[in-house]
C-alpha cells in the first residue's frame, strides 16, 4: 500500500450557531486506527467530513497523504439498478477487482435492485465499494449500523487487515468497535 498519513491540528467545528468541538488534534501514521466515540450530536460525522475534506473546519487544518475512502450512511449506489451494476459503476471508476463482493457475501444479492436491500445489506454493499477503491485512508462513519453479529465481525476483520497492510482507519461510532491496538478519542472532551 502506498505511504499514507493523516494529521489534524487544532480543529474546531461549528454547525449553525453551535461550536461542536475545538482544540482537536490527531496524528495517524501508516497502520494506525482510532475510534472517535461520543453520544449523538457531538460532531462525529462532522469530524469525519472535515477529515475527508468535504467540510471546511471552523478553525485548524488537516493534512492528508494518500487517497481517502469514505463510508457513511449514504451508499452512493443507484437504487434502481441491480447491485452488480451499481457496484460495477464504481469499479469502472476505481479500477478495482471483484474479490470484495465474494468476501462480503453479496453474490446472492447481485441481481436485486439496490433499493430493495436491507440496511445491513446496503452497508455491506458500501463496504464492497470501499474495498475495491483500495484507498489507504479509511474514514468510516457508523460502519456497524444495521449489521448483524456476523457482519460486524467481518467488518472488524476487514479494518484489522487494512491497518495490518499499512492503512489508516478512523471509525466514528457510538458502538464498541473491537480492534487490537486501536486508540480511542472521546469527542465530548473537546466540547465547548
Amino acid at each position: 500500500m502506498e505511504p499514507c498519513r493523516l494529521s489534524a491540528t487544532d480543529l474546531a467545528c461549528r454547525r449553525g450557531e453551535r461550536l461542536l468541538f475545538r482544540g482537536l488534534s490527531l496524528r495517524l501514521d501508516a497502520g494506525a486506527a482510532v475510534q472517535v466515540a461520543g453520544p449523538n450530536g457531538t460532531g462525529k460525522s462532522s469530524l469525519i467530513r472535515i477529515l475527508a475534506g468535504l467540510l471546511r473546519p471552523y478553525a485548524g487544518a488537516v493534512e492528508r497523504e494518500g487517497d481517502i475512502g469514505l463510508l457513511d450512511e449514504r451508499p452512493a449506489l443507484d437504487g434502481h439498478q441491480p447491485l452488480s451494476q451499481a457496484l460495477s459503476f464504481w469499479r469502472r471508476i476505481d479500477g478495482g477487482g471483484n474479490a470484495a463482493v465474494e468476501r462480503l457475501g453479496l453474490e446472492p444479492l447481485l441481481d436485486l435492485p439496490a433499493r430493495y436491500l436491507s440496511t445491513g445489506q446496503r452497508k455491506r454493499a458500501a463496504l464492497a465499494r470501499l474495498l475495491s477503491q483500495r484507498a489507504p485512508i479509511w474514514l468510516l462513519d457508523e460502519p456497524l449500523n444495521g449489521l448483524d453479529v456476523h457482519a460486524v465481525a467481518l467488518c472488524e476483520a476487514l479494518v484489522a487487515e487494512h491497518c495490518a497492510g499499512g492503512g489508516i482507519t478512523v471509525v466514528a461510532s457510538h458502538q464498541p468497535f473491537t480492534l487490537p491496538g486501536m486508540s480511542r478519542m472521546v469527542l465530548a472532551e473537546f466540547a465547548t
Partner: protein
Amino acid sequence: MRPLLTILRRDLALLLPGGQRGGTLLPLLFFLAVAMLYPFAVGPQPELLARTGGGVIWVAALLAAILPLDRLFAPDLEQGFFDQWALRGIAEEAVVAARLLAHWLSFGPPLILAALPAAALLGIDAQTLWTVELGLLAGTPGLAAIGVMISALTVGVRGGTALAGLLLIPLAVPLLVFGAGALATGGAGGIALCGALSLLLVAVAPFAGGAAIRAAREG
C-alpha cells in the same frame, strides 16, 4: 478522463428517454400536448395558427425543459455520489459539464424532432418550420445550461422545484426573444444571437453549477 466517460454513460442511462430516473418521455409528451391543445384554445383559423404557431412551439419547448430539473442533481447529492466523486479527485465542474450534455441530449434533439408533428398540427409552413428548427437547435443548449445552473443552485432548498421553474422563466427570456423573434423578422440574425447566448451560457454553466454543488455540500 475514463471516470468522466463512465459518469457520462451513467447520466445518459438515467436521463435519456426510457432512462431510469423516471418519465423522461414526459417533456416530449407535454410539448406535443401543448401543440395539440392550442388550436382548441384559440380556435381553428388557419392564418392565426400559422402566425402564432412558431411562438407556441417555443413556449412549449421552454416549459418542457423545466420538467426534468428536480431530478438533475438532488438524488445524486442525497445519495452521496458527489462526495464520493470529490474524494476521487473528480471536479464538480466536470461532473456538471457531463450532466449538461446528458440533459441537453435528453430533451433538445427529441424536441427538435417533435417540432415536426407539432408544426403539422399547427399548420405551419415549411419556411417557418425551418426557422423554428434552426432556432431550437441554437436555443436548446442555452435552455439546458440555464436549467443545469438553476437545478444546482436550488439543490438544497426545500420546494426547490417550484423555485427552479420560477427562476428559469425570466432567465430564458433573452433566448426566447432572439429565437422566437427570428420568426417575426425571418432573419438569421436572431438565431445567430440566440446561438451566441447559448454558447455563453454553456460555457458558464459548469463553473456556476460546480460552485453551487460545493456550497450545497458545506451547508
